[in-house]
């Protein structure tokens, strides 16, 4: 058992090393990449435009639910006036970055891992190698940069939609004064909270894209079965590892944020 634990630890460290080299090479390859703006625009479209409906939907329902739960809880203490603060702080600091990231993992991250897995299996990645084109630069590098642009934008969009969702519950459904709601939001939200939310978005975006790309790119090496089942395995791993990474990093960043 001890031997197995040791082997597992060594394998994990080895894989982490490979992952780090993969990310470093992907970023390094950007310097040799031609037509970077057009590749970046395509990556932004794939990650950004295709994800906004799910961000809108989930953000809206999150705001509605937080507003409803918050209003019922606060009303027990006669503190309904703090609904705006409750909704906005919880969404901007925690729910916005985390849920937006998880939604993008499900929508764009899984698609990215599957696409790269299929391209690996159909030898398209090898084809690029033989053409003298660095596949990491061609496929991964622009997506990492696109993630740094798209995740904060999606998070901001999620935050706004979520706060509006809380407004719908508190003001439209529960009859709170809309001035009270917005005043509470205004008084409680500080630049510091918004900044940390964006820090989380940047870290999540980069990490998720790197993990999904890594899993898809290494489908042939990391999956126990070839072909479609291999792609399915790598896609599943990409989603699971990315989701765990989001939650773990969220804890770490929050710990840094609240530390004195």
């Amino acid at each position: 058992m001890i031997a197995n634990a040791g082997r597992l630890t060594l394998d994990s460290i080895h894989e982490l090393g490979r992952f780090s080299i993969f990310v470093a090479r992907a970023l390094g390859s950007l310097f040799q990449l031609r037509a970077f703006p057009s590749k970046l625009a395509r990556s932004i479209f794939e990650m950004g435009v295709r994800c906004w409906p799910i961000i809108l939907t989930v953000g809206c329902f999150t705001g509605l639910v937080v507003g409803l739960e918050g209003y019922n809880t606060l009303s027990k203490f006669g503190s309904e006036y703090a609904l705006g603060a409750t909704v906005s702080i919880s969404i901007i600091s925690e729910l916005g970055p985390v849920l937006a990231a998880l939604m993008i993992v499900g929508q764009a991250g899984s698609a990215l891992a599957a696409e790269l897995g299929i391209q690996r299996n159909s030898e398209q990645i090898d084809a690029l190698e033989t053409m003298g084109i660095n596949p990491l630069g061609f496929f991964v590098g622009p997506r990492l940069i696109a993630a740094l642009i798209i995740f904060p934008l999606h998070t901001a969009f999620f935050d706004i939609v979520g706060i509006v969702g809380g407004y719908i519950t508190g003001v439209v459904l529960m009859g709170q004064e809309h001035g009270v709601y917005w005043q509470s939001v205004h008084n409680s939200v500080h630049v510091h909270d918004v900044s940390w939310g964006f820090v989380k978005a940047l870290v999540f975006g980069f990490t998720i894209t790197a993990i999904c790309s890594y899993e898809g790119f290494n489908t042939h090496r990391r999956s126990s079965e070839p072909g479609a089942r291999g792609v399915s395995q790598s896609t599943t791993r990409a989603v699971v590892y990315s989701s765990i990474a989001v939650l773990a990093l969220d804890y770490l960043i929050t710990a840094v944020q609240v530390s004195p």
Partner: protein
Amino acid sequence: MSTPFLEIRGVRKSFGDHVVLDGINLSVDRGSITTIMGKSGIGKSVLLKCIAGIHKPDAGEILINGHPPRTATNCSGSPEAPRLSYLFQQNALFDSFTAMENVALPLVETGRTTRRVAREKVLKLFADLDLGDVANKYPSQISGGMQKRVALARALITQPRLILFDEPTTGLDPQRKNSVFSMVADYQRRFDFTALMVSHDIPEALFVSDRVAWMDRGQMRFVGPPTDLEIARDPALLEFVHHRNELLSELAGQHGRTTLFADWAELRRTYEQFVVVSCATERRRPGSELGLRRFASYQAAVACIHELKRPHGQIYFLDERHFGFGVGPAETDTVVEEIDSALKPVNDLSTPAQATRYRWSANSYRLAMVSNPATLWILEDQAEMAAPPTSP
């Protein structure tokens, strides 16, 4: 002696405990077409990927014009290595790019070529290859044969000195297979590249090849011109090359051509003559090439020879219209007449009403004059050409 354009020396490659390449040696001359044959899963594609620089060999050396190969991420190669292209088994075209974008990709992404110049070059190449009408179509919108040609256009656009073809006819029907082979031979002449091809298609691939290499158990066990396959003695190679005749032998429940090639020296020691029973066809109609009706006639002819109950017994099945056997000194004078007489009922089965008629006859050759089975075909061809044509 000229230096080979591609030289592979003692290349070894393993995946875990599985040894795939176990000391491969191969030289390929400039401007030639070399075909690597071998059973599935023995590492032919791995060898091509080692040459392309996609896999790094565990040991050994690969030199292209004296330089190690180099890819975008394999920095151990030499920048002076001549440009090579790789035609993948499944074409590896990008689904989200049009044919034009696929072919222009190596120009646009690696050189200083502008999109406009790349487009002009691709259109010119498309015109040369009769691909003009597929330029703006996606790979999913064109046929498998067209996809293969687009993939070949992508391989040619950078004017490579070496092209690696990994089973270029996989998944194609026989007609398209032939056109792919003729395309490879034609383009090789027009664009003057060196070709290294992996193929299972025998004999089609042999027709376009200058040299053939046969790979087995991680090593090159035969390298030479295709004609030398006829005098090769390795039983495993003979079985691979003559697999079609093996099928005929198995269907007729007899030994086949492989045994003939392997035992030729023994046969010459044992027998005085070799009798070849052959089928002549006065005209060919669609369907006769498949040999289906001919095979029915073939089986009947084999059955007749067996009825003679000759003491030698062993029949060698050469192809769908030839078989034969050794004959001892005592019976050499009479055996051909006996066989002709025995075959009469089979020949009578072919009625004038049939579209294709099969006439079986026998010729006897002195084994002392026939050094190897390949010589036998030459003698048999000469006998067929000398024979008067049969009337329809």
